Each structure stands twice: as structure tokens, then as C-alpha cells.
């Protein structure tokens, strides 16, 4: 089928099998390798992306179900080349990433969590990231990064420099 969808704000078109995994469409057909494959069966969350704002495992989503949809991948998370999203920033500062394979999925799951719970408790962080496995960090630094991200302003510091300085202290 001829598939047209919006990825990170840009309309893209490719020819794929209707049951091709969104994961493969992104990585192979659209050359966006930021989305990772871990298990390929919905267990690890490495392939997490947003479809119309909802967190999904792209290894379980058939291409035909994203025709005309709005996809956000890790490549579309940072507001600009110079600026990171607050969750990315917090992962950097607090050692939330080691080998990095789980990181794109962790960051998207964390963003979904913060959208629902702007000031999450540790229990909410654990539940929100419950579908994302990490074999390196032992999770503690990841959870700490998410809690720290919640304290950073959601809008770019250029728009709110004082708040960021506040949060940095």
C-alpha cells in the first residue's frame, strides 16, 4: 500500500505492506533509526513512539493503522538542534542513559507520564515506565531522571530563562 503519514511534523510517503510494523517503516523506509527494537513482542518498550499523542509499541502497530496519523519519534522530541527536551536534559544530567538502547523508549514513556502526571510520585513513575526494560542502569537513575525532569520547565528556557535557572539550583 501507499502509506502517507506525518512523522515529527513532516508528511512522509512510502510503499509498504499493510501489516509491516510501524517500527520497520520508521527505521527502514523512513530512515529514522532512533526508535529501537528490543524484543519485537511488546514487552520491552524500546520501540515506543507516539501515535496521535498516545504512547504505543511500534513493533505491534501495523502500517495500515497509521495511515494519515501523526507520529512522534525520539528524533522529534528536542525542540531544536541546540535545545533538548527537559526529559532528555534530565537523563543527561542524572545519568539516565548508559548503552542507550532503551533510552528513546524511556524518554517517550516519561513524556507520556509527565503529560498525565506533571508532578509524579515515585510509584507513578514506576507504573508509567513499567513497560520499558533496561539492562544497564538498574532503573534507579532513570526514575531519578524522570522526577528531576518534572522539576524542569516544560517550555524552552529561551522563553522562560528564570524558571530554568531556578530549577537548575
Amino acid at each position, binding site marked *: 500500500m501507499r502509506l502517507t503519514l506525518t512523522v515529527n511534523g513532516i508528511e512522509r510517503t512510502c510503499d509498504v505492506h499493510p*501489516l509491516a510494523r510501524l517500527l520497520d517503516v520508521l527505521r527502514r523506509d523512513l530512515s529514522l533509526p532512533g526508535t529501537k527494537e528490543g524484543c519485537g513482542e511488546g514487552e520491552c*518498550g524500546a520501540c515506543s513512539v507516539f501515535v496521535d499523542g498516545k504512547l504505543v509499541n511500534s*513493533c505491534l502497530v501495523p502500517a495500515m493503522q497509521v495511515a494519515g496519523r501523526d507520529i512522534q519519534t525520539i528524533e522529534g522530541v528536542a525542540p531544536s538542534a541546540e535545545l533538548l527536551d527537559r526529559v532528555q536534559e534530565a537523563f543527561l544530567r542524572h545519568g539516565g542513559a548508559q548503552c542507550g538502547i532503551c533510552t528513546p523508549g524511556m524518554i517517550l514513556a516519561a513524556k507520556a507520564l509527565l503529560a498525565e502526571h506533571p508532578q509524579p510520585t515515585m510509584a507513578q513513575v514506576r507504573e508509567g515506565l513499567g513497560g520499558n526494560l533496561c539492562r544497564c542502569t538498574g532503573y534507579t537513575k532513570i526514575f531519578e531522571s524522570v522526577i528531576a525532569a518534572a522539576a524542569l520547565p516544560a517550555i524552552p528556557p529561551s522563553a522562560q530563562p528564570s524558571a530554568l535557572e531556578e530549577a537548575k539550583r
Partner: protein
Amino acid sequence: MSHNLSDFVAQSVQTLPEALRLLAEPADPSLGPWRPLAGGTDLMVTLAAGTLPAGRYVDIWPLDELRGITVTDQAIELGALTTYTEIRQHAQLMTEFPLLGLAAKETGAIAIQNRGTIGGNIANASPAADTPPALLAYDAELELTSLSGVRTVAYSQFHSGYKQMDRRPGELITKVRLRRPPSDAPGRTVHYYRKVGTRAAQAISKVCLAAFARIDGARLLNIRLGLGSVAPTPLRCTRTESVLLSGPLDEALIRRAEATLAYECSPIDDVRSTSAYRRRVTLNLLRELLQQCRSDRRE
């Protein structure tokens, strides 16, 4: 990836009649009948594993008429495409039928809950699935629709054997109906749900018990027990229920109920657990439930 997609035909539909027309087509000699694809959280796993039968799949995900939760005076109805996330977010459903919300919360993680549907959970017919015990505890009804019309089946009658069900060729599960009890129904209510797995989140259950009970003084007025992972199908334990309704809820009755339930369930040994462990845990859960019924009485 191990699968060869060229063995698969898939088609999207925009309306329910379109879907039903495809499902009514005679089986193709090589590709078989059309089969529904909903959120794909079961199907896509088997596709990737190479165990999904090659064939023709009709994508019902776009059918908004199968989405959403409707409240009427008599019932709360869930479209077959209702996701676990939508169940968890529906305040009235969570208040009146909390077991369904608890089951949804126990099902996979957020990304699975955003995609997995109640219709898919039922039709996938895993004895270890998490919503079936809750649906049994509430004596839910299913609405099945085909080109020849709509019929209603009691969910307790739906599964007839391992992965076998009362779904006729060409039928789609379109609705799940939960009858709302009259507001003046007597007795105090107890809703009980407990899934026992290897860990709190994301594990397939070893045993799951959901129960709804009404109790007045020392007597149960009504009780429905739904068990997962202890039989080839999700199991409604009607014999144990009759024992529990036969007299005051005292230690002797509980012992009789345990003996009956030990007999009524038929757990197996598998990779997740053993038959003996499952039977033991099942009885522990029953006791915990009945203790909860009794302690509510003393309040």
C-alpha cells in the same frame, strides 16, 4: 523478522457493514476466511513469531461505531474496540464495575493499554487473560453481529473449550454489556480482584480470581466467581457458588466451598507454574475473598 508478509492479505474498512460483508465471504481455498484485526497486541506478536496463520485480515481498528462506553438506565455497554486506557478513564464504569478497571490496570503496561481492546481480549480466548474473570463476576453479555443480524450471548456460555468459542462464522464481537443492578438491591456488595503473577506489573497471571458478592448479615445473597488460568477456559465456578449460597457463611461452609473449588478447577503444569501451586493459591484467594465478605459484615 521471521515472517513473510507476502502470505498475508490485509484490508481496512471504514464502516461496520463493510467489515461484516468481508467476514461473510466464503473462505478462500488458500487464504481461508477473513479474520478481524483490532489493536494487534496479540496478532502482531504471533505475526512476528511466525505463528500467525497466513490469510486475510480485516482491520476493524478504524470503526468508531465499535468504540466508546455508553451508560443507559439498564446497563453500561462497551464497544468491542474499547481500550484498557478508556476503561480506566471512565469514572462511572470504575465506580459501578470496579473489577473491570482493576483488570485493565493489570493488563500490560501503558503502551499495551492504549492499544489492546476488550473485544480482542475476549476473542483471543486465552485462559490466562485478565478481563474474563471480571466479566464472569459481573455476568456480562456479549453482542455478536453478522450480516444476518445481532445476537446476545451470556459471556459465561461463550467459551466452550481451549480457544473455542460460540462465535459463528462471519460474526464480530460488537459489544460487551454489563447489567446495572437496581439501586435498591438488598445487601452489601463486595468486589474482589486479585491476580497472582511473578511480579506486580506486566506478568501473565498464574491465577486470577474476580468475584462479586452481595451479603446480608451472615448470609451471601448472591456470589459470582470468575477464575483465570486454572482451566482450559476462563472459568465461572457455579458449583462453588451454590455451596456458598446454601447456608450461613461460617467456617464449615468455607471448608465445603474450598473442597468444591479444588474439584471444580483443573489447573495444569506449565512454564509459569505448577498445577498444585495454582490450586493452593486459588483456595487461598477464595478464603481471602470470603474473609473480606465476613469482615464487611461486622462493620
